[in-house]
C-alpha cells in the first residue's frame, strides 16, 4: 500500500463524504490507520459533515404528517413490512429497506440540493436496489481488517458497528466465505458472526445470486447436525443480497442459504445456493 500512499491521502474528503467505491473506501480506511495526517483530516471533515444537514433550506412539513407518521410507527408492531424474520435487531436488514421500494416510481424533475447550483440531470442507468450498502461495506472492511490488521480489535469494533452505530463492544468471532453449492451456482458471499453486549449476530452478504421470480426468497439457515434453524429471509436485487440476524449464542456447525418458493417456510424446501461450515470461538 505504501507506493500509493500519496494518492490515498488525497481521498480523505471523499472518504468522509462517502464518494468512494467500496474498494477505495476499504483501502483508504486501512491507510488512515497508519497515516496520522489522514486521521486528523477525517476527524476534522467529519465535523463538517455532521453539521451539513443543518444547512438545509427550512421546508414546511406537509399538514398531518406528524399524525400519519406517529400512528404508523406506533402501529408498526403489528404491520411489519418484514418477512418472518426472527428477532432481527439492526436497522440494516434488507426488510426495512423494502418498505420504501414498494413506492411507485415517480420521476419529478430532479432539482439540485444546493441553492443556486446547476447540475446535469443524472443519467438513467440500470436499476440496482441498495439492499444495505452500509452492511456491505462493513463486511468488506471487516475482511480487510481481519486480513491486514489482525488484533486491532478496537478498530474492528468501530468499523463493524455499522448501520445504527449503537452497537458497543463488538467482537468479531469469525468470518467465513460462503461456497456455492454445486457447479451450476456462481454465487458467492461471506458470513460473519459477531458478538456484542446485546447478543450474537450473523451478517450475511452475498452476490451473483440467481434471479428470484414471483414470491421466491432467499432463506438463511443455521444448522446444527440435521436441525436447521430459520435465520430469516431476504430478497436479492441484481444478484446482491444481505441479511442481519441476531441469535442466542449456540453452537451451529453450518450456515446455508437456500432458494425458497416463498418466505413462509420453517424448514428448507428449496435448493441450497451457498453454504459454509462455521464454528464459534
Amino acid at each position: 500500500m505504501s507506493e500509493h500512499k500519496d494518492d490515498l491521502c488525497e481521498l480523505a474528503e471523499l472518504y468522509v463524504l462517502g464518494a468512494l467505491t467500496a474498494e477505495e473506501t476499504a483501502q483508504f480506511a486501512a491507510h488512515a490507520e497508519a497515516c496520522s495526517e489522514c486521521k486528523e483530516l477525517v476527524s476534522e471533515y467529519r465535523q463538517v459533515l455532521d453539521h451539513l444537514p443543518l444547512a438545509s433550506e427550512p421546508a414546511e412539513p406537509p399538514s398531518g404528517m406528524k399524525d400519519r407518521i406517529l400512528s404508523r410507527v406506533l402501529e408498526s408492531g403489528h404491520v411489519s413490512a418484514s418477512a418472518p424474520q426472527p428477532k432481527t435487531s439492526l436497522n440494516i436488514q434488507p426488510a426495512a429497506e423494502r418498505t420504501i421500494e414498494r413506492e411507485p416510481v415517480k420521476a419529478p424533475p430532479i432539482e439540485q440540493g444546493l441553492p443556486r447550483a446547476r447540475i446535469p440531470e443524472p443519467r438513467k442507468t440500470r436499476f440496482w436496489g441498495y439492499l444495505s450498502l452500509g452492511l456491505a461495506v462493513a463486511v468488506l472492511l471487516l475482511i480487510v481488517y481481519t486480513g491486514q490488521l489482525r488484533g486491532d480489535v478496537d478498530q474492528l469494533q468501530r468499523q463493524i458497528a455499522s448501520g445504527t452505530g449503537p452497537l458497543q463492544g463488538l467482537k468479531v468471532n469469525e468470518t467465513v466465505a460462503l461456497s456455492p453449492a454445486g457447479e451450476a451456482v456462481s454465487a458467492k458471499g461471506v458470513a460473519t458472526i459477531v458478538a456484542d453486549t446485546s447478543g450474537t449476530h450473523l451478517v450475511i452478504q452475498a452476490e451473483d445470486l440467481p434471479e428470484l421470480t414471483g414470491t421466491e426468497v432467499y432463506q438463511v439457515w443455521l444448522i446444527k447436525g440435521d436441525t436447521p434453524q430459520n435465520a430469516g429471509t431476504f430478497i436479492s436485487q441484481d444478484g446482491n443480497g444481505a441479511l442481519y440476524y441476531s441469535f442466542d449464542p449456540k453452537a451451529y456447525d453450518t450456515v446455508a442459504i437456500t432458494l425458497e418458493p416463498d418466505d413462509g417456510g420453517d424448514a428448507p424446501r428449496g435448493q441450497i445456493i451457498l453454504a459454509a461450515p462455521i464454528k464459534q470461538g
Partner: protein
Amino acid sequence: MNDTADDKQLILLIAQKDSNALELLYDRYERVIYSFAYQIVKDSMAAEEVMQELFLRVWKNAEQIDFGRGKLLTWMFAVTRNLAIDHLRKRSSRLPQQSADSGNLDMIQDHTALTEDLVELQMAGEQIRDALLGLSRDQQQVMDMIYYQGYTQQEVANLAAIPLGTVKGRVRLAMKQLHKSLRHWGRRDHAHE
C-alpha cells in the same frame, strides 16, 4: 417527563415504548430532519416517507441506541441521508456503481456531538448555509452531487464531464472552506460537554 428531557432520556423512555417520549422527540426534530430530507429528495411525499422510516427505526431500535449527549441527532441525520439518497437512486433507477455510499457515515462511531439547543442549531444552520453559498459555483456543484445526491467521485467526473483530479481538488477546497467556517462554533459546541 417534560419538554426539557434531553435526547438520552427520551431514548431511554422510547426504548420502553413510551409513545409520549417518541412524540416529544418527533416534535423536537421534525423541522430540521424534514428540511434535510426534503433538501435531498425534493418531494414532500418522499421526504415524509424518509421521516417515517427514520422514526420507525428509532422506535424499534431505541434500546440499542446508546449515544452520548448530542449524538442522537447526528445519527438521525446520517440515517436520513442514507434513506433519502436510496430514494433518489430508486427513483432515477441509478446504478449503484459499487459505491461505498454514505455507508461509511454509519460506520463511524465518533460522530460529532451536535448541540441539543434548538436556537443554537438554527444559528449553526444559518452559518453553514452561508458557508455553502460562499463556495464557488464549481465547488457547489461537486458538493451537491456528492453530498446531496450520493454520487461517487467517478460518477461526478463522468456526469459533469470534468477530470477526476478536478473533482478531488474542488471537494478538497470546499471541505477546507466549510471546516474553516465551522471552527468558531465548533469550539462552542465543545464547551457544552
